[in-house]
């Protein structure tokens, strides 16, 4: 992978130099919907995507473009399209590649909305998905059919924290000429760059660690530029003639950037899930400190793992950096700096004890997000999955005593004290029961 500058330098500089007219050192927020054309010639060239530039913020915007260029350089992709959320990114990828009658192979251990989109929404439009165990290579290979157009998984699954063996899955996809798309939200380019392991497409929820402060929803698609879309029968809307831009073939005209060109010309143009320039600015501010934050997230996670492991109130503990995690070996290989800052654990006393714990912590916030600078918690048994019985939760890989912890950047001693209060309350419930 070609890089002239190192990660930390690119996090601060890629995609932007001081503004020529004003000297503005920070990335300006171009809070505008549209751009005055210099002449009709330029207008036509922009509409037709003959040259770079901006015509309407639904399609592109200078502040958002800086974010896109920064993300592409950090992940080693050839090009990037930023959009309104991680889910928008997922939807854009699926609809850019697949049409009715096509098939997807996806991990069965993914974020709920990723699963729902494929299992319940895309099926209504004739796109079927076979869900597989992300680490059963044989199962993945067997599930790929002649009409399979995409293999999809998360590097670190949410919330189960299974680690996909990306290099091996990429080899299978390469052999079968199917693109491998990876949700890289939980690892961020700081911990791992899936394109260097052979993945072809990345999606990020920028809402999480990349933005890092819980203030803006955003998503991005990064194109590895390492997939051959040339098979016209298999990928007719990328390598065949396409209605957008006068019937050109995206593959013949844009080559390595064909997928992102298509997403911009069709997905952003016709669906319109654009990011706001303000949110792009917030997310850029986050990226400036991504490596600093990730280092501290990982450091705090290590200390929290030790604390939880030694705590009486904890019945089980799961994190890929722990030796007893089933994917520990893979994690060590592809995530040498650490496997992210989500920890899941069980609380003695089941669902009610979990509820008591959550209700008695103060510093740690009980909410539905991950990757904030602040420590976050959720107890699926009393929130997202409260309507399910213990058995039904088990079926979806969850248990009613499970807590998902997103380790923040606080002084970890304060978080430990906070947790002790929660554990005390949980223990009361637990002892009442026994």
């Amino acid at each position: 992978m070609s890089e002239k500058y190192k990660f930390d330098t690119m996090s601060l500089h890629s995609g932007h130099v001081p503004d020529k007219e004003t000297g503005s050192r920070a990335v300006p927020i171009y809070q505008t919907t549209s751009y005055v054309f210099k002449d009709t010639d330029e207008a036509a060239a922009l509409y037709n995507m003959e040259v770079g530039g901006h015509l309407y913020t639904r399609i592109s915007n200078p502040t958002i473009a800086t974010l896109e260029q920064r993300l592409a350089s950090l992940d080693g992709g050839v090009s990037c399209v930023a959009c309104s959320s991680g889910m928008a990114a997922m939807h854009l990828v699926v609809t850019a590649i697949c049409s009715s009658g096509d098939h997807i192979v996806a991990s069965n251990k993914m974020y709920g909305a990723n699963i729902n989109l494929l299992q319940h929404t895309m099926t209504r439009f004739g796109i079927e998905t076979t869900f597989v165990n992300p680490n059963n290579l044989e199962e993945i290979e067997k599930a790929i059919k002649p009409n399979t157009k995409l293999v999809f998984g998360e590097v670190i699954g949410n919330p189960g924290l299974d680690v996909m063996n990306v290099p091996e899955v990429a080899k299978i996809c390469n052999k079968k000429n199917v693109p491998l798309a990876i949700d890289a939200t939980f690892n961020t380019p700081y911990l791992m760059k899936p394109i260097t392991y052979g993945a072809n497409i990345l999606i990020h929820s920028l809402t999480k660690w990349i933005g890092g402060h819980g203030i803006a929803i955003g998503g991005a698609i990064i194109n590895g530029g390492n997939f051959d879309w040339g098979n016209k029968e298999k990928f007719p809307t990328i390598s065949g003639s396409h209605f957008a831009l006068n019937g050109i073939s995206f593959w013949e005209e844009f080559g390595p950037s064909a997928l992102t060109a298509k997403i911009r010309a069709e997905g952003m143009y016709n669906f319109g899930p654009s990011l706001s320039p303000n949110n792009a600015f917030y997310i850029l501010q986050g990226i400036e400190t991504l490596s600093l934050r990730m280092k501290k997230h990982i450091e705090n996670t290590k200390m929290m793992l030790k604390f939880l492991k030694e705590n009486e109130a904890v019945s089980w503990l799961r994190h890929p950096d722990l030796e007893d995690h089933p994917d520990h070996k893979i994690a060590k290989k592809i995530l040498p700096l650490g496997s992210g800052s989500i920890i899941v654990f069980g609380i003695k006393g089941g669902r009610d004890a979990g509820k008591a714990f959550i209700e008695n912590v103060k510093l740690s916030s009980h909410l539905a997000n991950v990757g904030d600078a602040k420590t976050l918690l959720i107890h699926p048994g009393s929130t997202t999955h409260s309507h399910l019985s213990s058995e039904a939760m088990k079926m979806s890989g969850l248990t009613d005593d499970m807590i998902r912890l997103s380790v923040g950047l606080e002084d970890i001693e304060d978080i430990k004290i906070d947790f002790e209060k929660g554990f005390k309350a949980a223990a009361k419930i637990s002892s009442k029961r026994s």
Partner: protein
Amino acid sequence: MYKDFKGNKVYFSTGGLNLVNDKETLCFVHGAGQNHYSFTQQIRYFVSQGYNVVAPDFPGHGFSEGNQTTSIEEDMLWLAELLAFLKIEKATFIGHSQGCLTILELAEKKPELVMGLVFVAGAMSIPVNDFLIDTSINNPEKAYDLMVTWGQDSYGSFSISDWPGHNHLAEGNAIMKMNDPSVLSTDLKSCNLYENGKQAASTININCLAVLAKFDMMTPLKKGLQMVENIKQCDYKILECGHFLPIEKPKELNALIKNYLNS
């Protein structure tokens, strides 16, 4: 567009349109280890400006099959034959890097084909150091990395351009990886061997344009200016960028070519 040419499947980009007899033709000639994607932001622009565009992938490059040409003279003959095959009698040639050597040679040997000449980040000779040639033989991907990082100035390396979301370094690399792995070393050797540039330049009798890069580490500006001096009528412009000028400064390049075509 794909055609069977000299027993091989050959690709040349026309910007998605069919070639039309009565339009003026622009022929874009790519550099060492490149293919038609070097000119992504030129090809469709000039098509919509009303020109026929032919931007071939030389054999083994991009989508073209066949044995690679091994000298600039062969490159020139292959190109001349392709144009004859496409029934194009005359064209304006825009060469980048090695492509400049090819069109210099063409200007001397087949002047009847040449309506105009634009040299982009070019020179009359392109000697290549042994280290790069050896690396291109033993570890082509490492050589792509070196060329791509040398080929951008610091702005380019930070992906500073108007092309939303594009990362020049990775894209340059991906373009080179589309070629057969033997392509780069063969091209670099062709560049290294070519000695007729000065003689060819001295025979040119038409008005030409050179667009040179101030921070060019592959074909240094000084050598580009020597070429300008050796051509009877050659206007030149220097842009603040690296060797991969068509990607770093596409709008400026397009405006200069357009101006040249209209003059």
